[in-house]
Every structure is written in structure tokens, then in C-alpha cells.
């Protein structure tokens, strides 16, 4: 399907509004430029309503015009001209959908449709419109071909099972897989019917019982499969929740356990107190240097040396006796002198020496009191006046250095204390505990669920094995019967058909998922400009569980919703949508509302380029900000561009008075680069920045 033209009347903001779509394969982009709140999303909804009916409207949505009052009649008309090519023949159609209802009426009325084939000879009305429409544009494909940037993100964001379900649904619907699934069910029913006929025609009790058991298994197996699927979904969700809780716990642990931080803080505070004590002690030590004997010796040096010289002179003159009395008295207690000679009184020489020492002692004791004082002063003052190395500066330097070192330690500890206090403030009382409890809860539920799923799997396996046995038995038993033979043949045929259809379904699922995955990867890597040799993102893939994952370097699996930036996330979902539509082989327009949000520069341009190349017809609803930066690619690829303006934006956003205050979008022919009296806007901060950049 290719859209040629659309016109809307009375659909919310859209009144008397006509859009021409580009059908040029080389310039296949149609751009509808509009600021926020100017009718872009309304137009996306209106297109879907016209093509698919009320089912395409969000729940509770009414297309009534905003300006109509309660009780007034609302007439809504959508008129689309499109063409469809089938087997090389292109036919053009006109679809008109209309709805008349009273504003405020509780019951929503159903729209009516008319479909015409446009022939050179005139319009030919086609009956049974919905059936034709389902062929031209199957409603299953609506959400894939008509999407918006935010909505598409649901393929990679939200609960994992929801993501998987959406991806799976999109792939299956696009590939027509539900039809095959229906076929499988149909063949199964045929099998059951044949068995029932066989049973009826037979009196064989064993055959009857076998058939009953088979019936029971046929009912039980899908039930069990459904329960298993539910359990698998729950396990998948719990695994997600467990992973998230574990990540939160790790984060909380990184921030730190409150008790541990508090204990560490106490330790640091104790150390800091001890350091403070050491600083006081170092200060005291330094202060002590200002009043110790080394200080006195070096400061009073000049006077002390004079005194010392005087005392030395007196000593030389013998005025100061040697301090020998205690030594001499000590020697007399021993049998020998310090010179080694004997002091033994029994020996004549020893006795002589002994007497001499006693005389020396007497002589010393005879010195007068002054001499004693001088003598004391000389001996006790020698440390003060005797020449020696200066030492105070070295002592001071060492004390000062020790003090500084300790001060540094004290300051460091202070900083550590402040950091810990700040950390403690940030950590909630129960962060770690809560995170741990959450994780353990999910773990416990997983531990409960996994064996339960395993039991279900085993049950299903046993039931299937039993079914195979029973089918064989049924075949054998029924073969014994004349009539049974015929039914057996039918049954064999039905079973064979079922096998073929089931295998086809399986192959399609696997093969098509792989094809979509490969295409999506190609588009995505092009869009983000990832080079295989050095890019952080190496590839994207759809897993067999229908999950979109991204691989980084070293095959590291990245979660797109966490590990990708906003632009890459959007690029990935658009790549997926494009891949789906391409692999499906269905020719239909890709209509995307605000696809370029959060993008800039290279990625923005490449998304437009890739989307244009991958689509047969690309219709983009873009804001001015989205257009900013990709004008060049639009110059090259956009075949039709129009602008719509909300007159109610005057005077805040619009420069000129549009002359109406009706709630309706006003179109103009301005393209992505031009402005007119109607759509000219007051430059916003971002516009100004863009203009500056362009300049």
C-alpha cells in the first residue's frame, strides 16, 4: 500500500486539512513539520482510524472537534486515497470513513466506510469494505507500520517479559504466524474428530478407553504448557527483579553500610583525638626548647664563656680541688688502686699507698666554703660553659618537623572524618538492609518457582510420551477394526499434516527471527556509525526468547534500556521496526511520529537516511528541533513537505496573528527550511543556538 493523499474533517484539531504524500521512490520521505501540540499525533491517530476503524483508537478516545459544545453534532470524516500493487498490477482506491455523533453522548457510535476503486471510467464502489481493507493493510501490522518514537521504545524498555511479548507479537503478526498457529489447532481438532468417529464405530472397550485417555491428554497438555509459559514468564520477571535488586544492593554496598561507616567514623575520630594529643605534646616539646638548658647555654654563651674561663683559671691555680674524695673513698674499700697497684695494708707498699690516699682525702676536706661553692659551680656548670657543638637549631628543626608531620596527619584525618560524615548523611539507615531483603525475597521466590517449572516441564514431557504411546496403541487397536482402518488412514494423514504445519511454524519462527535480527543489526550499526573494529557497541540481536540485546566489546551483553544512551535506544527500536517491515515483504508506508527525539548530529541524519532506504514510503511527523541538523538529508530524500501550525500558539510561540482562535491546525506549504507569515515562530533559546551554530 502507498498513501497518495489524505483529508480530514472534524477530527479534533484537523479540519479541512489535506495532505499529499510522496510516492517518488527516490525521494520517498513525506515530512509533516509541526511544533508540539499542533496535531502530529492527532494526524497519526486519524490515519489509523481511517484505515483500521475504532479499534485503532486509544481507549476512551473520541475524534470530536475540540470546539464543539456538549449536545452539538460532531461530523468526522477521513478520506484517504491509496494504491496497492499486486502481481504487477497497481490499483488505486479511495477510502472514506465517517462518523456522526452527539458531543457528550455516553455511547460511542461506529463509523461507516465506503471504498471505491478509482478507474479511468469512474469510481467503482466496493462492497464488504473491511474484508478488502484487511487484505490491503492487515490490522495486525498497524502497530508496526504506524508508530511513534516513544511507543517504539517499549520493545526494549519495561519489564523483560513485556518487552519479549511485544517483540514476539510484532514478529509473529508481521510474518502471519498466527495463521499457522490456527492451522495447527485446526488439524488437532480434525485429529480429535477422526478419533471420536473411530471410537463410535467400534465396540472395543480398550479402544474407547485409549481414546478417552488421549482426549484427556489433549486437554491437559495445553493447560500444562500454558502454566509452564506463565511460570517461565514469572521466572523471567523474577530474574529481572532479582538482577535489579542485586544491582541496587551492590550500589548500596558501594555507598557503604551505615554501621560500617559509623564504626569507621568512630575509629577515625579516636585516631584524630590521639593525633591531637600528639600535636599538643609536640607543641609542648617545642615550647620546652625555649626554656631548657641547651637554649640557656647557647643564648647566654658569651657570658657563660667568660665565667667558664675564670673558673678554668682558678682550677689551674689549684683553687678548685678535684672532686676526688668519693673516688678515693671508694678505692679505699677495695684492695687495689685505679692504677692497678695494691692498697693492701698488710703489704708495706700497699699500706704506704693507703696512707697517702687517706692524706689526700683529708686535704680535700680542708678546702674552705667558698672553694666548695666554686668547685660545685665549676663541675656543675661545665655543661653550660664548656665549648661544644650547638644543638638548639637541630632540636628545634626536629621538633617543628615532627609537629608539622603530626599536623598533616591530623588534617588528613579531619578530611577523612568530614568525608565519612558526609557519606553517613547520604546513606539511609536501612539502604543495604532493605536492598538485601529485596534481593533475598526475589531469590527465595525464584528458588520456589524454578523447581515448580521443572516439575511442569517433566509432567508435559511425560504426557507427551504417554500421548505418543497411546496414539500408537490407538492406531494398532483401530487397525484391527475394518472401519478403524479407514479412520486410521485419516488419522495418520491428519497427524502428518499437523507435523508438517508445526515444523513449518517452528522453522518460520526461527528463520524469520534470525532474518529480522540480522536486518535490525545492519540498520542499527549504520545508524549509530559503529565501526566493527573499535566501536563500543559491536552488534544487536534478537534472541530466540524474542529479546532485543546489544553486545559490546568482548561479547559483553548490554541491556539496551540501561547501557544505551537515549539516541541509540531510539535508533535501535526504529531499526527493529524497519527490519520487521522489510522482512515481512509487506509494502506499506512507515508512519513515524517524532522519531528523532534525543538525537543529534550523525545519528539523527543516519536514522533518516537508513529509514528512507529501508522503507517503501516513509512518513515522518517532525518538530522543528528534530528537523534541526538533518535538513541536508531531507533536501535529498523528502519528496513532500508540509507544515501545520496551531493558531493558539500566538503570541507565545507564533510571531504573527493567524487571524483565528479556532482549535484547528492550519496547513501551509512551507518546507523544512522555509517559513511564512502563518508559521513563522519567535526564536526560542534552542533555535537561537542552532542559528548561531549554523552561522
Amino acid at each position, binding site marked *: 500500500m502507498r498513501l497518495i493523499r489524505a483529508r480530514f474533517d472534524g477530527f479534533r484539531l484537523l479540519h479541512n486539512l489535506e495532505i499529499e504524500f510522496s510516492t517518488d521512490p527516490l525521494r520517498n520521505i513525506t515530512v509533516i513539520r509541526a511544533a508540539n501540540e499542533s496535531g502530529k499525533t492527532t494526524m497519526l491517530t486519524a490515519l489509523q482510524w481511517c484505515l483500521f476503524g475504532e479499534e485503532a483508537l486509544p481507549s476512551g478516545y473520541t475524534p470530536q472537534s475540540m470546539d464543539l459544545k456538549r449536545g452539538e453534532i460532531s461530523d468526522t470524516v477521513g478520506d484517504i486515497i491509496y494504491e496497492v500493487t499486486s502481481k504487477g498490477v497497481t490499483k488505486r482506491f479511495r477510502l472514506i470513513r465517517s462518523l456522526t455523533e452527539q458531543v457528550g453522548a455516553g455511547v460511542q457510535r461506529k463509523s461507516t466506510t465506503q471504498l471505491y476503486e478509482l478507474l479511468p471510467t469512474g469510481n467503482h464502489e466496493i462492497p464488504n469494505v473491511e474484508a478488502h481493507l484487511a487484505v490491503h493493510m492487515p490490522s495486525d501490522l498497524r502497530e508496526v507500520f504506524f508508530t511513534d518514537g516513544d511507543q517504539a521504545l517499549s520493545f526494549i524498555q519495561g519489564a523483560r517479559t513485556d518487552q519479549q511479548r511485544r517483540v514476539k507479537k510484532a514478529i509473529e503478526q508481521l510474518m502471519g504466524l498466527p495463521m499457522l498457529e490456527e492451522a495447527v489447532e485446526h488439524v488437532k481438532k480434525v485429529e480429535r474428530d477422526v478419533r471420536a468417529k473411530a471410537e463410535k464405530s467400534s465396540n472395543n472397550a480398550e479402544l474407547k478407553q485409549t481414546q478417552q485417555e488421549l482426549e484427556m491428554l489433549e486437554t491437559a497438555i495445553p493447560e500444562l504448557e500454558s502454566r509452564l509459559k506463565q511460570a517461565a514468564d514469572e521466572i523471567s520477571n523474577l530474574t529481572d527483579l532479582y538482577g535489579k535488586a542485586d544491582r541496587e544492593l551492590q550500589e548500596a554496598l558501594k555507598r557503604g553500610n551505615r554501621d560500617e561507616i559509623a564504626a569507621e567514623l568512630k575509629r577515625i575520630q579516636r585516631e584524630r583525638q590521639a593525633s591531637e594529643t600528639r600535636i599538643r605534646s609536640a607543641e609542648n616539646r617545642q615550647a620546652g626548647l625555649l626554656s631548657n638548658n641547651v637554649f640557656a647555654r647557647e643564648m647566654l654563651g658569651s657570658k657563660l664563656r667568660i665565667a667558664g674561663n675564670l673558673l678554668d683559671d682558678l682550677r689551674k691555680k689549684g683553687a678548685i680541688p678535684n672532686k676526688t674524695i668519693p673516688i678515693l673513698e671508694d678505692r679505699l674499700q677495695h684492695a687495689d688502686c685505679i692504677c692497678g697497684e695494691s692498697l693492701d695494708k698488710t703489704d708495706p707498699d700497699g699500706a704506704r699507698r693507703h696512707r697517702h690516699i687517706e692524706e689526700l682525702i683529708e686535704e680535700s676536706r680542708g678546702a674552705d666554703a667558698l672553694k666548695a661553692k666554686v668547685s660545685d659551680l665549676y663541675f*656543675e656548670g661545665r655543661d653550660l660553659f664548656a665549648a661544644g657543638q650547638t644543638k638548639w637549631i637541630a632540636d628545634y628543626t626536629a621538633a*617543628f618537623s615532627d609537629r608539622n608531620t603530626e599536623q598533616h596527619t591530623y588534617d588528613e584525618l579531619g578530611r577523612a572524618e568530614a568525608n565519612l560524615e558526609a557519606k553517613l548523611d547520604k546513606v539511609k539507615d536501612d539502604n543495604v538492609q532493605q536492598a538485601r531483603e529485596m534481593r533475598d525475597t526475589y531469590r527465595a521466590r525464584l528458588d520456589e518457582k524454578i523447581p515448580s517449572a521443572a516439575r511442569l516441564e517433566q509432567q508435559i514431557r511425560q504426557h507427551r510420551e504417554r500421548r505418543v504411546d497411546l496414539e500408537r496403541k490407538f492406531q494398532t487397536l483401530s487397525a484391527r477394526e475394518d472401519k478403524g482402518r479407514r479412520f486410521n488412514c485419516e488419522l495418520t494423514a491428519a497427524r502428518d499434516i499437523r507435523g508438517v504445519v508445526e515444523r513449518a511454524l517452528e522453522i518460520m519462527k526461527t528463520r524469520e527471527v534470525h532474518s529480522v535480527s540480522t536486518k535490525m543489526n545492519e540498520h542499527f550499526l549504520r545508524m549509530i556509525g559503529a565501526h566493527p573494529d573499535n566501536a563500543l557497541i559491536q552488534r544487536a540481536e534478537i534472541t530466540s526468547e524474542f529479546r532485543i540485546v546489544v553486545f559490546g566489546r568482548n561479547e559483553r551483553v548490554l541491556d539496551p534500556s540501561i547501557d544505551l544512551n537515549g539516541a541509540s535506544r531510539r535508533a535501535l527500536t526504529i531499526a527493529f521496526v524497519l527490519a520487521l517491515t522489510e522482512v515481512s515483504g509487506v509494502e506499506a508506508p512507515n508512519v513515524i511520529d517524532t522519531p528523532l527525539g534525543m538525537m543529534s548530529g550523525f545519528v539523527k541524519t543516519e536514522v533518516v537516511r537508513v529509514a528512507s532506504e529501508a522503507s517503501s514510503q516513509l512518513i515522518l511527523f517532525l518538530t522543528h528541533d528534530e528537523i534541526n541538523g538533518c535538513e541536508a538529508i531531507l533536501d535529498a530524500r523528502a519528496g513532500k513537505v508540509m507544515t501545520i501550525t496551531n493558531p493558539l500558539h500566538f503570541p507565545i510561540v507564533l510571531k504573527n496573528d493567524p487571524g483565528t482562535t479556532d482549535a484547528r491546525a492550519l496547513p501551509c506549504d512551507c518546507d523544512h527550511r522555509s517559513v511564512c507569515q502563518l508559521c513563522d515562530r519567535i526564536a526560542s533559546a534552542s533555535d537561537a543556538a542552532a542559528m548561531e551554530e549554523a552561522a
Partner: protein
Amino acid sequence: MSNPFAGSDIMIPEEYREHFDSYVQKKEGKAAQPIHQPFARNIDMWFFAICLAVKKGLKAESYSGKTYKAAEGVVLNSDPWRPTALTLLALGETEDISIIDRPGDMLRIANGYALAGLPALLTVLGEREGDTALDYLSETVEELLRSKAA
């Protein structure tokens, strides 16, 4: 050597009382900090003033004004080298050995230097600006010892 000054008192001009209170760690009152009160006792500040005066080559001064008792001579017992140092100072000053028998004269000489040194000490302390008393005094002493070989 016994302390010849044990029976004497250390008398300081009244005008310095306030300064002694500022730079000496008191046992009562606010907690003393050595960086702001670098002297443990009055006797330490008095002795520092003597050392400073001698090192700077100042002349001993006399004073006849009002004084107060800053310390008792017996305090010198706690550092036995101090009575010896004061005796040697008196001997070095007078070059008369008999001075050691006249504690009053020796204390007068010491006090004369203290009177000369105290204004110098207070000038140093007054110039310290943001520095602590302990650090500025220590640096001054270091400078003195480096510049004038003892």
C-alpha cells in the same frame, strides 16, 4: 650545688603583669595552648627575657617602680641547671669570683637583664601578626642563633 636564690623572690615591674598572664600557661582558667602561651611558668618567661637580652647584647637595666612577685626563687630548684646558669651569668658579668657568695647581687644582675629583655620579647611577640607566639618566638631564636655565633 644548692640553690642560692631559694630565699629570694623574682620581682617584675607591675606593667608586665598583664603580658605574663597572656603568654604563660596558667593552671586555672582556659585550657592553655603552648602555641599561644609558649611559657609553662612565669619563671620560664623571665628566664627567656634574660637569655634574649644577653644574646642581643643588651645592657642590664635597673627599675625603681612598682613591682610584683612573679615567682619565688625556690622555683628554680625544679631545674637545677638554672641557679648554676644564673650564677655563671653573674660571674661572667662581674668577673669577680666573690659574687657567687652574694645571691642578692646575682639576682639583681639577672633581673637587670630580664628588664632589658622583656621589652625586646614583647616587641617580638607584637610583630608576629598571624603567626603563633610559639612559632614566631622559635623562628626569632633560630635567627638569632644563626646570625650571632654564641
